[in-house]
């Protein structure tokens, strides 16, 4: 079966939420919309405190004076109401970042001037791209890279392959799976719209083998449309971009490179769905599917939640248990532990995981068992990385390919000495960046 080398087989824990249909969550009384929910240039608010806003209205745009403003995505109001505050708030990505807070007036009235429902076949590639950009769509698998940038490769890069990442390899998460089950035709439509923007003929859908029903539905929906639905081995991180590309096409993205260096663009399931909503119905990205799961909630579920909805609202809807130890934005392998329940759902929030058991384990010296080396999907030597970082040896840190690590967590998962390797990698990357900046300064000076 198609796969990559390395990786791990944790129990996927998807049984908790996989049978829970997507359920629209009522808009909360207040939404908190961070101005930076994506990779790239942050937005600046286009509204003031006290302004009346309506659903779908742009409230944040990339700073027009920033030369790199193309790499950004506008933020829209997810409810109608009044701007209650523009201030820093905690977000899933940082302890404090500029946010626009909107008091919901309960009207849920759409803004004027949004594009009307259109037959997408009447739009050309540029028209589709414009709608995607204006709708503020970003990669919704977690990395949140602006989608219109991803589908605008530099002219010298010829893209011949588009892959829909339907692996959803993170344990617990089922929101992509529910979209596949409930809206397969919409996903295929969104995917083909993306293909049209780049004039790509080779279109794939990569599904992990633990979702055969979803693969079958997609296959039926894609029948006769020139889309290949391929089943990949169940193995984490099958949904990592480079690993999925390799599993399907046998192409290896060069180190430090991007998928477009091998002629490939990968899009996530939820992104394809959002693209279809934006292009056909003119709807900006104001809600997304979010899985709430883990042993810390009574009723694991998959919600369609408005962006800006506080985690607290989703957790209360699912029956938050007492004695919870850890709350994670995203999946258990790459998600971010949260210190507050008041952070909002943002464009990249695929799930909220609530765990009752979590301990900061004591770690030991590396015993050279080699498990991390076998598990690393990037062919790195995580043992050497961890030893270099633990010793704060910057020369060694620069020699062990830290920058090729995408922090999938396989090494740390398998480590019998419980070494926090991913944490060291994050720290090491920051240290090396600091060092490079210093060196550059010295050169200039």
């Amino acid at each position, binding site marked *: 079966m198609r796969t990559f080398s390395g990786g*791990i087989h*944790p129990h996927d824990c998807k049984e908790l939420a996989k049978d829970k249909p997507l359920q629209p969550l009522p808009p909360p009384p207040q939404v908190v919309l961070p101005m930076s929910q994506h990779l790239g240039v942050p937005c600046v608010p286009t509204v003031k405190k006290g302004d009346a806003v309506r659903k779908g209205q742009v409230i944040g745009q990339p700073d027009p004076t920033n030369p790199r403003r193309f790499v950004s995505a506008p933020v829209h109001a997810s409810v109608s109401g009044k701007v209650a505050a523009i201030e820093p708030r*905690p977000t899933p990505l*940082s*302890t404090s970042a500029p946010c626009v807070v909107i008091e919901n007036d309960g009207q849920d009235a759409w803004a004027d001037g949004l594009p009307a429902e259109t037959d997408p076949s009447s739009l050309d590639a540029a028209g589709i791209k414009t709608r995607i950009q204006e709708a503020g769509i970003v990669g919704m698998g977690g990395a949140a890279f602006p989608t219109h940038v991803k589908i605008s490769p530099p002219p010298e890069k010829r893209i011949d392959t588009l892959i829909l990442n339907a692996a959803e390899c993170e*344990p617990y998460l089922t929101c992509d799976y529910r979209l596949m089950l409930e809206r397969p035709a919409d996903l295929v439509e969104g995917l083909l719209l993306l293909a049209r923007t780049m004039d790509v003929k080779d279109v794939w859908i990569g599904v992990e083998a633990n979702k055969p029903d979803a693969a079958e539905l997609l296959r039926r929906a894609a029948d006769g449309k020139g889309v290949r639905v391929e089943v990949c081995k169940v193995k984490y991180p099958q949904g990592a971009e*480079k690993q999925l590309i*390799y599993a399907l096409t046998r192409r290896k993205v*060069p*180190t430090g*490179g991007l998928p477009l260096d091998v002629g490939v663009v990968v899009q996530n399931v939820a992104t394809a769905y959002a693209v279809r909503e934006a292009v056909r119905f003119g709807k900006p990205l104001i809600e997304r599917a979010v899985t709430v799961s883990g042993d810390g909630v009574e009723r694991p579920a998959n919600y369609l939640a408005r962006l800006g909805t506080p985690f607290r609202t989703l957790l209360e809807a699912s029956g*938050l248990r*007492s*004695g*919870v*130890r*850890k*709350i*994670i934005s995203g999946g*258990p*392998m*790459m*998600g971010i*532990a949260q*210190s*507050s329940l008041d952070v909002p759902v943002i464009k990249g929030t695929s799930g909220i995981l609530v*765990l009752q058991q*979590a301990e*900061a384990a004591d*770690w*030991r*010296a*590396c*015993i*050279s*068992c*080699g*498990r991390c*080396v076998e598990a*690393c*999907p*990037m*062919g*790195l*030597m995580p043992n*050497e990385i961890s030893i270099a970082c633990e010793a704060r040896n910057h020369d060694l840190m620069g020699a062990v390919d830290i920058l*090729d690590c995408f*922090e999938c967590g396989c090494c740390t*998962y*398998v*480590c*019998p000495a419980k070494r*926090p390797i*991913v*944490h*060291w990698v*994050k*720290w090491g990357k*920051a*240290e090396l960046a600091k060092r490079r900046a210093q060196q550059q300064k010295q050169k200039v000076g």
Partner: protein
Amino acid sequence: MPDEQTNTASDATPEAAQAAPGRLLVTSSPHLRSPESIPRIMWTVTAALLPALAWAVYVFGPQALVLTAICVASAVATEAAIQRFRGKPITVADGSAVLSGLLVAFVLPAHAPWYVPMTASIFALGIVKQLFGGLGCNVWNPALMGRAFVLAAWAPLVVSGSNWPTAFGWRHPALAAAPAGPDAQVDAVTGPTPLNRLKERLREFNAGNRRNVAVPTNANEAREALRQIQAEEGTPLDDLYFGRTGGCIGEVNAALLFLGGIVLVALNYIKWQMPVLYIGTVMLLSWALPIAVQGEGTRYLVWFAGQPLAEIFAGGLFLGAFYMATDMVTSPVTTRGQVMFAVGCGLLTVLIRRYGGYPEGVCYAILLMNTATPIINRYTRQSVFGKRPKK
């Protein structure tokens, strides 16, 4: 509803990550960990060795148990004492000191006087392991270094005296089947190990004490003479395999060691390549490499005349290949490195056994390859996904 805790800064080191009880724990991803742990590995390997220990008590008598207890107790005490002295957490509960102590016992003869196992164990844990920084930092396999140390200190007690039980007047009936030399009674008490017997007899023969074997005058006769010596001094294969023979405590029963080894391979605690390639290399080379047979004035090198099965079942090879060479800390990290390590161990074992001064080569072979582990690691790093080879 849990209280809230401020985030740790994004560039905080792992040392800074902690959480007060009852608050939300904020640590780096991944938030899932496999149930595998150092204690689980160490205790499982220890358990895999227990059948072989039981057999040792069966053939060598309670003295084997006493010696093992001395080794384990001194190992644990040494580790705990040093960790306490250094103000480090005491980690003897993780099973690593117990396992090291057990392995020290396994490479010593059952009736060595009490101070031999104790010295071996203290040296192994104190000097070889803790002095280098404790578990994970040692360069050499502690148990084998313990043996090497006492072998240097009290060679006669460790090598030639390594045999049948005398303690408590206990003697197992299976030993009645033990091969009897001309001096059966003495042999049965302190006879040489199977490997030693053959080596000694060959040395005597080459030195001129031919006994009943005719002096070879050509290559064919040399081959014939060797065959005769092998037949007279050889131990039946089933005795070797099932441990009805002399030797160190843990090494005699290849069958039980093999069984435990299979379990470790199945649990993925060791890779099959290590024992298979180590034992395979010994098998091939001990069959192929030449044996010198002294004729009248001429020395004949007899090729392809070794006894591969006897060589792999005798001595400490199974113990070494499944439990010592595979020691995670002192063997290479990648499978490719382990393949090189295993073949190197096999080559050195045969060279020492056949051409070196000792009858047994496993101990020094593994220790020498331990020394080579860092350099093997350096040249067997796996290649980064998507990285083009440097020009």
